[in-house]
């Protein structure tokens, strides 16, 4: 930890919202890709009507992206605002 940078804001929010966004979406995408390649029978299994596990996973991944993007946008704004107060 650099002693010269003051840490005034120890909020519960993550220090790097961009990193959280990248890690969450990247790992979800990696897992999704692995599942699609390795477990094709599982992805083709029907869960509800004609909808398969694979289609639900695609929808989930899309909604995850939208949700994390909105969160990232808000947190990045808050972070910039708090940095602005500290003095820039």
């Amino acid at each position, binding site marked *: 930890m*650099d002693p*010269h*940078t003051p840490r005034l804001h120890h909020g519960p929010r993550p220090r790097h919202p*961009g990193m959280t*966004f*990248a890690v969450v*979406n990247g790992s979800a*995408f990696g897992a999704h*890709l692995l599942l*699609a*390649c390795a477990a*094709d*029978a599982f*992805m*083709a299994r029907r869960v509800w*009507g*004609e*909808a*398969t596990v*694979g*289609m639900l996973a*695609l929808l989930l*991944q*899309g909604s995850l*992206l*939208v949700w*994390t*993007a*909105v969160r*990232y*946008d808000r947190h*990045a*704004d808050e972070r*910039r605002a708090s*940095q602005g107060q500290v003095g820039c």
Partner: protein
Amino acid sequence: MSPQIMLTAPEALDEDTRAFVLMGFLAFVVPILFICVLSGPGRDRINEFYTAGRRLSSLRGALVLAGVYLSAATVLGTTGSVAVFGYDGLFIALCTMLSLGVLLLLALPLRERAGYTLGDTFALRAPGPAARVAVAVVTLSVCVPYLVVQLSGAGVTTAALLGLSGPGAEQSAIVMIGVMVVCATVFGGMHGTIVIQVIKTVVLLGAALAVTAVLLHRFHWSTDSLIEAAGQGSGRPVDYLRPGLRFAAGAAPESTLDFIGLMVTIVLGVACLPHVALQIGTAPDAATARRTVRNAIGIVGALCLGTALMGFAAAALVGAPAIVAADPGGTTALLMLTGELAGGSSTHAGGALLVVLVSSAVFLTSLAVVASVTLAAAGAIAHDVYTHVLRRGRMTEGREVAAARWASVGVGVLSIGLAVSVQGWNVLFLSVLSLAVAASCLLPALVYSLFWSGYTRAGLLWTLYGGLGCAVGLQISGPVFSGTPLALFPDWRLDWFPLQTVVLVSLPAAFLLGWLGSVAGRRRAPAVAQGRGLSAEGSRQDAGSGGRFPAAAGDLPIARQSYSPDGR
């Protein structure tokens, strides 16, 4: 099968209907082109020409960005992929959306360092002519193949729309569209591009909504029966929703790697296309740029959902064999579906209106994307190579705008010529190639120069040239180019590289080369680096204090302010 194709393909509309469609189409497209040309900048300001004055609000910006993302190849190709390959097509639609997530991460630092071209962004890290030339070379090798694909796709679509077929009609359609777009770009600049992109996204959303409503009505608003019918129509009901149809022809490990490679190419490549980066520069500040991308995610997501439904309906109503017979890439699926939904060859007014709406949306889509890409390529030539390398920045503003206009003409003529001469070949791989080049040159270079303080000019050059050489070389050595019956040159034997998609090798190679180049360059000439303010200590301090501008000292003030107005 062939009578069915004749019935559903748009060229089989009867005379009256075709005249109605054509009139509606012209009444729709011609005023839009006029608006586009008239909305050009009043004065020859370079800031106006390249970035429309950086005044775009986040909502309009999102419409524009969604328009940039949803190119003709994306909309038509994804619909066709869903229709033919089922689950794999759905995955492609998701990847298009995910690549906006990559752009969301890049948007903030990219806007903070935005100039007029990617060359300006990299020049903050590595000033000098060598880096600019490298960026221009990469930009052109991404843009020109992309333009060729979009233009030849537009030619086929328009010829089908006008009821003509054959290579002559397609080539004249390409020339017609190309000339229109070049005029729009030359006179309108970024202003014209923005107008046409906004209109195009709205029309495309409207068309997708209309088609989706009609097709869901056809299936009594039941997605279950739609999916079941799609499985039946695909000819492979058991495998339709099973992953792996896209590369089903290949052997086991290669097809899996190709699947992963294609998805990674789409996710990482689309976000790094030069015209996307140029579009980020039109936002007034970094926070607006980020919000723009966030809003665009919603729009693109909605359209991807619509694409999935339309692809299912195309498989159900037209049938995958008919789609593949009309075009192996499946790009005609959307138009065939529209013809089928409109009620076959002789249709009522509502059906003809649907055909007009979809045709205009497809036509505007090609037009808008070609305009955006032409602008980005022209910027690389006029701003990076001509102004900063050949003239060393000694230019007046008016002359630079004139150079940009001439460069647009040049790029337009070059790509029209190429698109006409390769007409009839299977050029779809060019679109994957340009995405692969973008993913394996521009992504590593952007990530390093935006987030790593130790990146040097040598590293940048190694990344750009190494990534370019690796991507193009491997593509030429792959099965798409030679050796297989479906390849471009079936008789040649250059195919020692087993994969169709190159990014799994070329992307790590470019990252490695960038790191090696930076480390080796610094070790070889530490004195020079210190003299230019690039010492390791300075970079570390910069990184520690949260500053993200460890570039050469002389560039710091430019980077912190918004870019200097004349780009010098």
